[in-house]
């Protein structure tokens, strides 16, 4: 453990590189997230956004680079990670919300949210239940605790997925295009929940194509292009005065 600077980043990625075979998809990406940051990652399809996000919790192992979460450091060289704690300990401090929701379809809403509390956090059923119910209420689904995911709309499923991540009390939550698989009329309910999380001061890293969210909710915007950070800054300066041609074109295309 490195002693924590309270104002320092709770999540740092340093020079992350990732190749699939001969193709280098991430060409040295660095990113710091401080507490309460909401970072939007933008970029064209194939620019490496998902891959980068997945490198942060090691769903994808970087080819090289360093990830520091809450003082615990994972250093990767030649695709071999060196870590001082088991990867599971790192992952449980980072929530993740997927484009396809990825709820456990054989479990009810309540069971989905309780699952990590019981089997990862090792809480008692009773305690897990009351925590889970609290977060399910938080995303407005108290009426549906006993429903199975297959019986919910996409927007409701994604809200359950958010509750499932929140219930673990993670240091930061990673979102990979959380609204891209939704029918347009369901996007709003999910964005509203995400906005309220941002207002609560949760640390979030969000890959998104929702320009309004990036512009109005995030504290920082990062633009990826072909595996590199081409531009980053506050949304105001980024959108008012885009520097690169690529980002200009990207905004125009949205």
């Amino acid at each position, binding site marked *: 453990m490195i002693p924590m600077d309270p104002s320092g980043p709770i999540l740092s990625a340093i020079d992350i590189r990732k190749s699939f075979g001969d193709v280098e998809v991430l060409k040295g990406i660095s990113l710091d997230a401080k507490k309460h940051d909401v970072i939007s990652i933008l970029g064209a399809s194939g620019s490496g956004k998902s891959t980068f996000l997945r490198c942060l*919790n090691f*769903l994808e192992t970087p080819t090289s680079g360093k990830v520091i979460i809450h003082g615990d450091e994972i250093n990767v060289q030649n695709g071999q990670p060196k870590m001082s704690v*088991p990867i*599971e*300990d790192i*992952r*449980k*401090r*980072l*929530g*993740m919300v*997927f484009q*396809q*929701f*990825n*709820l*456990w*379809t*054989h*479990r009810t809403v309540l069971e989905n949210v309780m*699952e*990590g509390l019981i*089997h*990862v956090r090792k809480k008692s059923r009773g305690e897990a239940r009351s925590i889970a119910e609290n977060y399910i209420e938080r995303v407005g689904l108290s009426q549906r605790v006993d429903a*199975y*995911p*297959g*019986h919910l709309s996409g927007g409701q499923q994604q809200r359950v*997925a958010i509750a*499932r*991540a929140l219930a*673990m009390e993670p240091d930061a939550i990673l979102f990979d295009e959380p609204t891209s698989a939704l029918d347009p009329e369901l996007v709003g309910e999910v964005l509203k929940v995400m906005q309220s999380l941002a207002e609560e001061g949760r640390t979030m890293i969000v890959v998104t194509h929702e320009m309004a969210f990036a512009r109005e909710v995030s504290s920082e915007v990062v633009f990826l292009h072909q595996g590199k950070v081409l531009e980053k800054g506050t949304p105001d300066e980024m959108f008012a005065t885009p520097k690169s041609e690529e980002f200009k074109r990207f905004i125009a295309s949205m």
Partner: protein
Amino acid sequence: MNPIEIMVSYWPRMLDGTLMTLKLTILGALIAGAISPWLALVRSHGSLIAQTPIRIYVSFVRGTPILAQLFLVFYGSGQFRPELMELGLWNFFRDPFNCAILVFVLNSTAYQTEIMRGGIQGVNLGEIEAAKAIGMTRMTILRRVIFPHAYRIAWPALSNEIILLMKASALASVVTVFDIMGRTRQIFSKTFDFSIYLWAALIYLAITSLFVFGWHRIERRLNRHILPRNNANAVS
């Protein structure tokens, strides 16, 4: 004797045979059921080197008649009696019941491994990723996500396999295990009344029907989450 009389005088033997058939089938299926998920895991996620022996074993079992396998173990073990005695295994192999169980376990394990492999490979990768992302260990992911789904997918095929195993268990009678078929042949050789074979068929049919009924009920329960909403509540 008419068919009723024959059953009236021989029912204790037929009952005995029925219990033996159930014992062979249930024991065989359960032991195979305990081994096959792990072989299936190796088969779907293991290295090529780990997979190869399982592949060879499965093709051997699938490619040879179960009767041949039974003779191989039953007569083969007699052939190697001194060696087996030395290993302390002769006591196991001298009992035809054990030989039969061994063959049925080897057989059913091979088929169940293939079935479970299909189940494991059918699990939605996204759900596994969600489990990883939340911090579950590999073992927890297996227990809480992979196996629950794999069994749901494999369930109907497992039912077929167990029925086939039950019917194959009739072969045990040729190595002097007195299951339904063994008892039936014994009674026939005394009475020369073929109606006892009809009774045997009826007993097999009854076991199969009861089994299918129970298995199907469990299947409905397991699949509550994909039934239409109203039915989902109705299944208790």
